């Protein structure tokens, strides 16, 4: 059996450095595009670094390898982070990042497999990724393949009813090769999630639906990595739901926990201030 992890022995310090670089990329990409979603892109950085560098079995040189672990970004608006990690791991050229959201770019405003075929799914209409992930995980079971499927949603996205159809299905069919990661940054477009339609208690809901639930700090690698590895090496019959508590806008002080940064691009002076802060931050 072939298993490939990009950097099995990577240190937490190295991952922190990658996360810092990705945040700088994300701010620059959204700033250059003049539109995008900085808040929810910055909240998911550590989760994606841990997945792509440490936990997932995949090989950037063989993007269509049948045995690869799959990642679906159901919260498609957070795709600046996905494109950045794909550049960091060598799937795409870093030079592509400034084309984000521009006509003809593989880096569409929401993930689009037609333009970037290495993606596992096209997303952007919230609530769909978990069902697609179930289809992939079912195919894995039918083929007796040992790849794992990770799906990331937002917390506001959990309000979509399709998630609950999917949440009933996955444990009933014993899809222990499937992991849902909820980037629980506690805000959605209009306001705090708890003020729009409170989804709490989130972990209890998934426990009641027969998922293994792990609640973690989604910025702390000492919690993220064990949780993802436990999910990847799941020995139970149940799928795993990781509720990752995160901070929307994480890493840029004037964006953190500010609802307005859900879907607004930083202006050139704001890009410069954010980059300066990220470059100066201790890791």
């Amino acid at each position, binding site marked *: 059996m072939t298993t490939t992890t990009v950097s099995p022995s990577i240190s937490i310090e190295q991952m922190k450095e990658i996360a810092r670089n990705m945040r700088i990329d994300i701010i620059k990409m959204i700033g250059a595009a003049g539109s995008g979603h900085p808040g929810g892109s910055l909240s998911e950085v550590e989760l994606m670094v841990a997945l792509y560098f440490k936990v997932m079995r995949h090989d950037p040189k063989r993007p269509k390898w049948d045995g690869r672990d799959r990642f679906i970004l159901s919260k498609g608006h957070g795709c600046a982070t996905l494109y950045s990690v794909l550049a960091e791991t060598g799937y795409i050229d870093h030079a592509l990042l400034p084309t984000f959201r521009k006509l003809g770019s593989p880096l569409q405003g929401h993930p689009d497999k037609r333009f970037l075929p290495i993606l596992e*799914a096209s997303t952007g*209409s919230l609530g769909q990724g*978990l*069902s*697609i992930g179930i*289809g*992939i995980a079912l195919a894995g079971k*039918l083929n007796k393949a040992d790849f794992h499927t990770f799906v990331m949603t937002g917390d506001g996205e959990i309000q979509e009813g*399709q998630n609950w159809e999917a949440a*009933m299905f996955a444990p009933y069919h014993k899809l222990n090769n499937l992991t849902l990661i909820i980037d629980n940054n506690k805000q959605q477009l209009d306001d705090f999630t708890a003020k729009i339609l409170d989804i709490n208690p989130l972990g209890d809901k998934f426990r009641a639906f027969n998922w293994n639930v792990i609640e973690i700090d989604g910025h702390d690698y000492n919690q993220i990595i064990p949780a993802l590895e436990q999910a990847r090496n799941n020995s139970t019959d149940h799928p795993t739901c990781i509720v990752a508590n995160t901070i929307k806008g994480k890493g840029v002080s004037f964006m953190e926990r500010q609802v307005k940064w859900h879907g607004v691009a930083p202006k050139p002076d704001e890009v410069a201030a954010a980059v300066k802060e990220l470059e100066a931050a201790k890791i």
Partner: protein
Amino acid sequence: MATITTTFQLKMGMATREAYGQALAELGAKNPNVVALDADLAKSTFSAKFQEKFPDRFFTVGIAEANMVGIAGGLAMTGKIPFASSFAVFLMDKGYDQLRVAVAYTGANAKFVGSHSGISIGEDGPSQQSVEDLALACGLAGFVVLCPSDEFCARALVHRMAEHVGPVFMRTGRAKAPIIYNENDDFQIGQAKIHGKGSDVAIIATGFEVGYALQAQAQLEQEGIHARVLDMHTIKPIDEEAIEIAATECGAIVCAEEHLLDGGLGSQVARAVGKTRPVPMEFVGIQNTYAESGTPEQLMDKYGLTAPYIVQAVRKVFRRKPAVR
């Protein structure tokens, strides 16, 4: 009740939904990558025929159409050929965003079959009667849209669906369908089946309406109007070549479909006619309304879909033909 005097009758066969189930089971034996999904209507859509033979490759998702369509998208992206079925109205209307994003926009090789289409499902009433599925399916970029007229056509098209790489929607019916073909007839996606050489008018029909169109053709023959019938089992991509020939040779067209007049067969044909050879057209279909409970026969008559209505439309379009072409 509208009536006609022809003695022309077609023998009744099985419903196209049952033919779907049979063909799907055949396909399962031929291709191990074929999997099937249903949303708690497997006995009604006849996907249960596949389930009996291949239980490990059959998934019932419960009453959750959106999830079913998303799962089909994921299965397709991992090399399977999923066939997902439900009543047409629930599959298309509840699964539409998923059909759009997880299937059409991704270009997934997934197949969808909506049964109980049209109003011929009868007594269950309009919440179960799909009168817009063809329009919705045509609104999905890259989809092939099929509407078989009888069991032989349906069975053949299920095999064509599996061979075609890309998303496909097929509508099937609840009621028994008249037998029009036999097992030697060949059906290809996008190629109309043409009945007769009449050159006074062309009747372009789909699904259940093909039987009525053939009945109308026999009646019109008695009146001295020579009609040809095109069975347009593929709504998209529409057979523009056959339509152009029919328009050129007949000079007048009647479309007939068990569907709202908005966005179904008539719209597709009219566009092809307008592009190639504009001629007078009339349209038989459901007129901007939802139907009601009743027997299939009562409903097809009350909502203007039976052979006499096609005959009326033909007489009307025939009068509109220019005297000298």
